[in-house]
């Protein structure tokens, strides 16, 4: 935990702190705005600004954590030198962001039945299968969002630990 906090502190105290703040606030705000619409979009069957009407405090909080959390992970990675960046943190973070998009985009839209049709499914197959797939995103929407939050949190931890570990080297060893 101490290493994570140190990694974050180094990000916002180092010579590239201006860029770190810019990424965190700019990208974080943009992503949060996106998720404020996207997370409740399963209520309206697709990405629509009207979805904001169905925003709950829990979803708003999740949107902020996802948006600013991913921006934080990105800022940490960006503040490090190229060799210090954590590829795993980037992958986990992007995975988390995408997982949060799934319920709103795949439940209650025509994407699933359209994909089934593209793969040559017959009408009876489509009518008997669409519900089995699409309902997963409806019924387990909370699980998807929780997994997203976990993914973004993990990406922060990985990025911060990587940043802190690499940064310790000049202090612990003799200066070049």
């Amino acid at each position, binding site marked *: 935990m101490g290493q994570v906090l140190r990694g974050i502190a180094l990000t916002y105290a180092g010579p590239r702190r201006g860029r770190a703040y810019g990424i965190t606030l700019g990208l974080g705000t943009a992503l949060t705005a996106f998720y404020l619409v996207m997370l409740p979009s*399963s*209520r*309206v*069957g*697709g*990405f*629509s600004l*009207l979805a904001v009407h*169905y925003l709950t405090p829990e979803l708003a909080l999740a949107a902020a954590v996802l948006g600013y959390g991913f921006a934080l992970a990105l800022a940490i990675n960006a503040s490090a030198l190229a060799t210090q960046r954590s590829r795993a943190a980037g992958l986990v973070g992007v995975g988390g962001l995408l997982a949060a998009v799934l319920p709103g*985009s795949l*439940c*209650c*839209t*025509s*994407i*699933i*039945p*359209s*994909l*089934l*049709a*593209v793969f040559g499914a017959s*009408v*009876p197959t*489509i*009518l*008997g*299968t*669409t*519900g*089995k797939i*699409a*309902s997963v995103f*409806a*019924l387990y*929407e909370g699980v998807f969002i929780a997994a997203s939050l976990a993914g973004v949190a993990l990406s922060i931890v990985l990025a911060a630990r990587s940043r802190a570990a690499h940064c310790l080297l000049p202090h612990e060893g003799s200066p070049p």
Partner: protein
Amino acid sequence: MKAFRSIAIAIALFFSTGFTGIFAAEPLAVGQPAPAFTYHLLDGGKLSPNTLRGHPYLLWMVASWCPSCQTGSDVVASHIDFLRSHGVRVVEMQLARDLGRPGPGLQAFHKAVGAKANAPNWYWGVLTDAQTAALDPKGDMDLYYLVDAHGKIVAINGNPAVTWDAIERFATTKMSQAAPRRTAQIPGGDIVVTRRSRFVTLASNRFTCGPCATRVVPRLRALPSVRVVGYSASVGTSPNGPAPNGLIGVLTLTFDPSKVTVGEIAAAAKAGLESDPHDHAPVRIVYKNNS
């Protein structure tokens, strides 16, 4: 990197099509007549094509596990009185077997909506497999047709929570109206009363067999001295001109003027028609050629 770019383009395409789907085809086209199905209702009754004939309606197919369908039901509930005031009916049907994953059932939506769900212009039912395949072969789970008073599909859309404006336009503009008629006629629901001595005839475009037998005739028979001596339903001309829906029913009664008045007879028939839980259109009584 190329793979990532391809995925990004695919996602962008889906978003740009507003989720209606780039591959989604409309099961029935605008301009086609809506299928004349008899629908099974949640209350065990049936909704026949005759009940919908001559009325604009929203035919909406939902899956009961679908959150946007529940939201849409809430939106429709908040506007159901508006739709009723414009003569628009709502037929909300659960797709057969919920498209393969049974949900809580449409009863859950009905219950969640509350008292508004019992509005007389709102029908709740379940589609059969055949009806689902005909109305929604692509398996969309929140799809509706706007059907005009002629039974013709005038719009296809989805997600009433998002597209309410289109439904409102349908209700308030000529989209929902039948084609203009050429001659004067009985406005929907009127009863034309014609008295000749001890006979009185009651004519109405709403005197179809069912309502007459179950709602009107029992009330008339309850009046003193009134006997129903004849009923006919014919296509075409009523005592007041052509019938709006092409059908006019005529009841012929005898009565004793010392025991009951023509006005009381007409009022009983009016009360019978207005007791229809699915059709509360006000009934105006028109007296003609009384002697």
